[in-house]
């Protein structure tokens, strides 16, 4: 009591830390600059700079005979990108990414919905653990594990056999395009592994978005005569849409860029990531590799623009 009574304003602190915090309190912008400067510099120079350099590369071409890069502005590389074989790769990758995203969203929504609306206490902890746990183990281990699961002698085949459903699996594998010798060398296999590996990136943003939807909006819709389906269609889904879009950005772009999963599980046909890997490595065609990486950037840009036009971010 007496200490407080001595002076209303406490004396200035003499220590360096004390002076520093007083200084920062008076000049908050300086603190902000110190905190944000280095990461922004990193982002601006190293990250965006290298991206720009990459873009630039795609406007150069490779000399067919010497294999050296010809540093002259040309659209020749893009012309090369648009040949049938390369368009095939792009189409294959984009289709796969779109399907993976769609199915991930459909699977993730109920899980996220349950976690956001009903799970409490230890069930919520369990949900986070279950969703995050796969992220803690090595990606390669998971993919190889799936290769074994999906193999002809794998547990899935065994499972189908025990259920007397082997005919179903065989019928699926006999289908053109999605089928193959076994699941582990088919597009179906690649698809399953993609969906599995990226699932947490879809669940978490949707869960976060749903968590922010107040319960009383659901009740208000129902009160006004909205059936559960209408409430989902007109209230819950639009409000969860930013989360779905965020999740789909992850699954879509991760699938577009991945080159390991289709190499380990799948038919031997190339995806964009593998093409980039091959072009910049063995083939040494850096400009074409760069042009290939521009494709996902353009697609993601167009996707975000479309999402914005469709009002996906209105609820933000």
């Amino acid at each position: 009591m007496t200490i407080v009574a001595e002076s209303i304003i406490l004396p200035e602190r003499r220590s360096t830390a004390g002076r520093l915090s007083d200084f920062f309190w008076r000049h908050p912008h300086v603190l902000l600059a110190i905190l944000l400067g280095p990461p922004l510099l990193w982002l601006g120079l190293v990250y965006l700079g290298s991206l720009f350099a990459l873009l630039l590369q795609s406007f150069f071409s490779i000399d067919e005979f010497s294999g050296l890069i010809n540093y002259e502005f040309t659209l020749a590389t893009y012309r090369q990108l648009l040949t049938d074989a390369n368009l095939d790769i792009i189409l294959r990758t984009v289709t796969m990414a779109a399907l993976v995203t769609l199915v991930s969203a459909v699977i993730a929504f109920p899980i996220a919905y349950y976690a956001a609306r009903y799970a409490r206490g230890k069930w919520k902890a369990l949900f986070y653990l279950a969703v995050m746990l796969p992220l803690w183990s090595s990606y390669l281990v998971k993919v190889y594990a799936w290769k074994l699961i999906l193999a002809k002698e794998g547990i899935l085949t065994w499972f189908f056999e025990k259920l007397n459903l082997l005919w179903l699996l065989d019928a699926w594998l006999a289908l053109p395009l999605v089928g193959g010798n076994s699941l582990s060398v088919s597009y179906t296999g690649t698809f399953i592994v993609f969906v599995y590996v990226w699932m947490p990136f879809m669940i978490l943003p949707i869960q976060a978005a749903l968590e922010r939807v107040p319960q009383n909006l659901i009740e208000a819709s129902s009160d006004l005569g909205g059936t559960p389906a209408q409430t989902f269609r007109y209230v819950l889904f639009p409000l969860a849409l930013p989360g779905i879009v965020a999740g789909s950005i992850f699954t879509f772009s991760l699938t577009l860029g991945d080159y390991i999963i289709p190499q380990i599980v799948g038919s031997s046909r190339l995806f964009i990531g593998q093409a980039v890997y091959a072009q910049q490595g063995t083939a040494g065609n850096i400009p074409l590799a760069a042009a290939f990486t521009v494709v996902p950037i353009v697609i993601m840009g167009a996707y975000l623009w479309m999402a914005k036009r469709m009002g996906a971010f209105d609820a933000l």
Partner: protein
Amino acid sequence: MTTAVLFDNVSRYFGAVRAVDRVNLKIAEGEFFAMLGPSGSGKTTCLRLMAGFEQPTGGHIEIFGETAEGVPPYRRSVNTVFQDYALFPHLSILENVAYGLMVKGIGREERRKAAEDALAMVKLPGYGTRRPGQLSGGQRQRVALARALVNKPKVLLLDEPLGALDLKLREQMQEELKSLQRSLGITFVFVTHDQGEALSMADRVAVFNEGRIQQLGSPEEVYNRPKTRFVADFVGSSNVLSADLCRKLGLKASFASLRPEAVAIAPPSDGALSLSGTVASQSFLGATNRVVIDVEGARIAVASPAARGVPPIGSPVTLSFAPSDLHPMEDA
């Protein structure tokens, strides 16, 4: 007279918490019915039972003669104005108001017109294109009202709809709500913890405490003749006279209530009862002074007209009141 809402021995328990405990009530069609009580007394839960967001643990609910148990909210011709409005943030004001009509499949043009009429009715014409986030609290409250009324509900439930508004706006809205209810003839069930609001607006008031109805009656009854000590305390701070004082005044009951404004600081006239004590405290309330008199250790509040002046603290005074203003009460 048709019964709009009937509660027959209705209870709603949440584990050990008895949010609503054996409540009986009968709300008449076209009535302005208020549910008054302190926070946590079960008013909202009662309203949610009517809307269908909660199912009773026991008892029976009827809405216009039809059993309401197991009927989902979207199949009840009952609409709610939520405490925090619950407007859809991703829809425009017009879409918010038209929502109920939209889900019922009414055509675009027709529902736009109905929604605009409803907005005009709550004095917000031309606000349709805005978003809820761009409106003030009072405006949002009106939108919530329009959104409910546009459906022409049989019963409108209002959960402390004016709680978030400042005094001036609240008084204005009280009048508007009252006249709206009169002109539309819709049954209003109005929840509030503000006794002044309940008394001034409602045809009948149910006073809640700990999930039970303490008293149900007209505002005059509840105000002038509180049945229990809780009602006397909660509805306008009646004086509660103890058994000792009651005996002294020749009353049989163990407790009695006495309204502050029924007491005068003056010698008794013919037939009046009187008590004497000393002035303990006083405060200026505008039109009246609130003077607290110490009568043999019991405190009795008096609402004395400001023009009368106040005797100084500590001075002896005589209180007088008519015997008819002394109301015996049931229990503690």
